[in-house]
């Protein structure tokens, strides 16, 4: 991205204010889209956090990691363990989840960042697959294998017991000092965390540190020649993005206290890459948009099935409705991944900058055509005079 305008702090505050307003009013303006229910909005927020964290690494430094799902998984497992052992309060869960994935990222980054390019991608992929395989096999005492780690009645919950909170007959739910982690209150917890993360991310983008990360992307050798050791910068970026992924993972556990190893599979890592690319790599708001769009359409399209399609086309002649429904049926419901793959390919081929590039192209088109009509209007009187 060459067009990096350095925004003034005031503009950033305005930016944050607008974003907060948009996010916090989501339950209202998403109503007409049929997406205003807390579960889905929480997903928007969580995958938003995951994607902006990923963007710090991939968008700024250009290092394509294919193993970020491992950090998401570590965050989830840690959060559930914190619920089991310490307290149902979300604060320790989030802190432990984030910190532990940060440490995990430190270890993986230490090895992976010795190499760059495709080797880096494959090293991260190898580590993620290793964690996934281990979570299914040897680490079963920690991860509970295929069943997934879940809460039980008999969990210790030391802090809760000390505070005198007794578990009643039903399973306790994660909460923030009594505010429940599910439903609308849960959405606002996620939204608040997303906004905080976004603010930090914004500051990183604007900081000299962020500029150095961009310098690494545009030419790492030259960066070295100017006397910078790039490794610590890369390492910091990697750990920060790992912590974002951990935060997202522990939030997933807050909304649904069940952690499974499939969260660490490499297709899950692929998903965050997809989200980031779709929105726009290296752009500020792009990853958030990508997360929203992908999760929205995942939700809408995978709910479609053949009978819904048949009804939709019922005004057509029978044979045509049948044909259309069976063709479109490939792309919705279970086949929603096919749509995703196709859209993703189209984006990479025609619009490598993602939706943000599309928007800016459209904007230029509109503004240039607007200015050209201005010119014509200016010219017209002069031609009349002539």
């Amino acid at each position, binding site marked *: 991205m060459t067009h990096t305008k350095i925004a003034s702090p005031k503009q950033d505050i305005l930016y944050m204010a607008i974003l907060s307003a948009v996010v916090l009013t989501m339950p209202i303006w998403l109503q007409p889209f049929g997406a205003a229910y807390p579960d889905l909005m929480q997903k928007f927020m969580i995958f938003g956090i995951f994607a902006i964290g990923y963007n710090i690494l991939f968008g700024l430094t*250009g290092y*394509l990691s294919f193993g970020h799902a491992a950090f998401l998984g570590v965050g989830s497992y840690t959060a559930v363990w914190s619920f089991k052992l310490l307290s149902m309060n979300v604060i320790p869960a989030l802190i432990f989840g984030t910190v532990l994935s940060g440490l995990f990222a430190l270890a993986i980054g230490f*090895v992976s960042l*010795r*190499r760059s*390019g*495709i*080797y880096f*991608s*494959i*090293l991260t*992929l*190898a*580590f993620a*697959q*290793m964690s996934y*395989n*281990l979570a*299914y*096999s*040897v*680490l079963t005492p920690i991860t509970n294998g295929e069943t997934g780690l879940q809460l039980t009645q008999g969990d210790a919950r030391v802090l809760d017991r000390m505070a005198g909170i007794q578990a009643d007959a039903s399973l306790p739910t994660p909460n923030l000092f009594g505010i429940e982690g599910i439903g609308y209150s849960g959405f606002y917890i996620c939204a608040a965390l997303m906004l905080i993360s976004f603010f930090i991310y914004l500051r990183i983008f604007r900081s000299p540190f962020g500029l150095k990360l961009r310098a690494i992307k545009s030419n790492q050798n030259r960066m070295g020649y100017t006397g910078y050791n790039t490794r610590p910068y890369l390492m910091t970026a990697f750990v920060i993005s790992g912590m974002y992924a951990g935060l997202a993972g522990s939030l997933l556990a807050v909304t649904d206290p069940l952690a499974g190893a499939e969260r660490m599979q*490499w*297709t899950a890592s*692929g998903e965050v*890459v997809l989200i980031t*690319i779709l929105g726009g790599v290296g752009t500020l708001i792009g990853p958030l948009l990508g997360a929203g769009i992908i999760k929205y359409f995942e939700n809408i399209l995978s709910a479609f099935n053949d009978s819904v399609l048949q009804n939709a086309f019922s005004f057509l002649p029978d044979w045509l409705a049948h044909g259309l429904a069976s063709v479109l049926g*490939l792309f919705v419901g*279970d*086949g929603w*991944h*096919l749509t*995703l*793959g*196709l859209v*993703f*390919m189209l984006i*990479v*081929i025609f619009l*490598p900058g993602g939706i943000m590039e599309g928007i800016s192209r459209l904007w230029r088109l509109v503004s240039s055509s607007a200015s050209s009509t201005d010119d014509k209007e200016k010219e017209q009187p002069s031609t009349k005079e002539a």
Partner: protein
Amino acid sequence: MDAIFLQILNGLDKGGAYALIALGLTLVFGTLGVVNFAHGAIFMMGAFCAVTVEKILTLSVRVKDESVTFFDAYKETPYLEVWFGDTGAAIIDWSVPLSIILAIPVMLLIGIVMERSLIRYFYKRPHADQILVTFGLAIVLQELVKAFFGANPIPQGAPDVVAGSAAIGAVFGLGEAVVYPWWRLIYLAFSLVTIGLVFSFLHFTTYGMVVRAGMADRETVELLGINIERRFTIVFGMAAVVAGLAGVMYTPVLPPDYHLGMDFLVLSFVVVVVGGMGSLPGAVLAGFLLGILQSFSSMTEVKDIFPGIDQVIIYLVAVVILLTRPRGLMGRRGVMES
């Protein structure tokens, strides 16, 4: 001793599949400079060629069951058996080897179409873009297969003649108890022959010589007036055929399902990296090596000492190799170093 011998065989067998896929990946990378994440999907499509052939051969008709005499019973009988009797049954029995005949042109076509319609626009794009677009393609291909064949694995049988086990121990003087499935031996032989064919094609034919020259210095070959791009397209098709055949032959070992490709792709990439990007002998060597290491690490004796080692050994080896020998076992200087 017996156990070790069997594990080596096991490893060679698995390694054969890795080596074949990695060979194709390396060929494509060495010629076109493209990192192809859809190569696993090609392997999977090869496997589904076998499934398709079997489905076609066993298209059935309801006929009266003559063995039941006291009421009218019907059974599904394949047309082939109705028309040709025992010959038809034998053809169905041999469906997997027969699929090879179909798979070669089909995979060649798929490879060439893929290269001409998509990959060629990505020669000059960054590797990250190539990875991403082929990753998208892999998702599309596997979802299409899932839509047509369903999500469950579809078992394929080897011909009856080779369905049992070979008393291989006697041959090597190890005792009668040492047996090994025939089909896996065939697979090993098949992979060795295929690898040999690819290498002799590259080394003993003029066409292959030009391809190798193009790999070493593309510009000079073009300056000599050779249309190297077309040859590279053919090479891409060839890589697809190799992966496809590896898939066809693997079906009796492992029932194919739609994400077979993804499972193998990750491993094959690790194999390529361990062998050294762009090195064909490296890919083959690393394939067999990692296959053997994997099968040894799944022995209970080893697992008792290092629990879980069988799950991670390949990745662990990859990490160690990349850190100590950054170019892989046989990687050349200047390949993928920027």
